[in-house]
């Protein structure tokens, strides 16, 4: 029963990892790809961590899995922002196709600054 749940969760996790990869390949620009990478992979890891935790033999092992997942979550949320900021400053990575015009294209208050985020 628990093995079946683990199997199901791992397969679901792998599907989300696959979705993240498909998103990187299919999505048109750097920032959209970053969405796929961050969110889908994060969920995939969460599901696989859950699957592994079901098989764990001690609470310490479960705590370790939770710790790993929490650190990856923190890193994903932080690095996604950093990569997004750099990609914005450089106008999209080379070979990423047309990145849209950036936040300046939005009808918000114009700031007059060319260089976002300093």
């Amino acid at each position: 029963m628990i093995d079946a749940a683990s199997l199901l969760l791992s397969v679901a996790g792998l599907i989300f990892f696959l979705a993240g990869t498909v998103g990187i390949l299919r999505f048109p620009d750097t920032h959209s790809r970053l969405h796929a990478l961050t969110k889908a992979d994060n969920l995939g890891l969460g599901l696989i961590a859950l699957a592994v935790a079901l098989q764990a033999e001690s609470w310490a092992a479960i705590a370790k899995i939770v710790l790993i997942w929490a650190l990856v979550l923190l890193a994903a949320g932080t690095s996604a922002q950093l990569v997004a900021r750099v990609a914005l400053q450089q106008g999209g990575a080379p070979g990423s196709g047309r990145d849209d015009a950036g936040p300046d294209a939005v009808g918000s208050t114009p700031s007059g600054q060319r260089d976002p985020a300093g």
Partner: protein
Amino acid sequence: MTDRPGKHRALLRSALKRALILAPILPALGADTREALLLGGPAVVAATWLSLHLLPPQRPLRLIRFLALLPGFLWRSLLGGVDVAWRAFHPRMPLNPGWASVPSDLPDGGKVALGAEFSLMPGTLVAGTRDGRLLVHMLDADQHLEGAVRLEEARIARMLGQPDTAHESLPTSGAGPS
């Protein structure tokens, strides 16, 4: 630094809270014997000291409110993963990427926390700030963003122990993917 006792007490409280967050990592790493704690104890002290130096306490972090945020955050990050996976697998790939810039009154650390949260929520990604406004990339430019930002901002502000002035203007429509 200063001889005001109130400030010292606040610093001590921050140090204790951070040690309380860091200490459970020890047993998680398998350090549950007496010998391991002889090494691990000083490690917690050193990590707390480093944390206070890298990020000096500005506002008291409300641990209970932080914990109260977790379930909702996990749920929305699950929705975020499902949403983007659906878009990636869909044959017509329903994307309508666009940008929005949203004002935020949170302190810098709070903005980073908000940005991290938004980067895992459905359809949003924060690419830094400009003039105090969050630059948000959206997978669907028609997504209603302002409401979701206000909602999360108020939650984080409460976690940081700020007076929650934004509370009255909370919109009810919010964090949904569309």
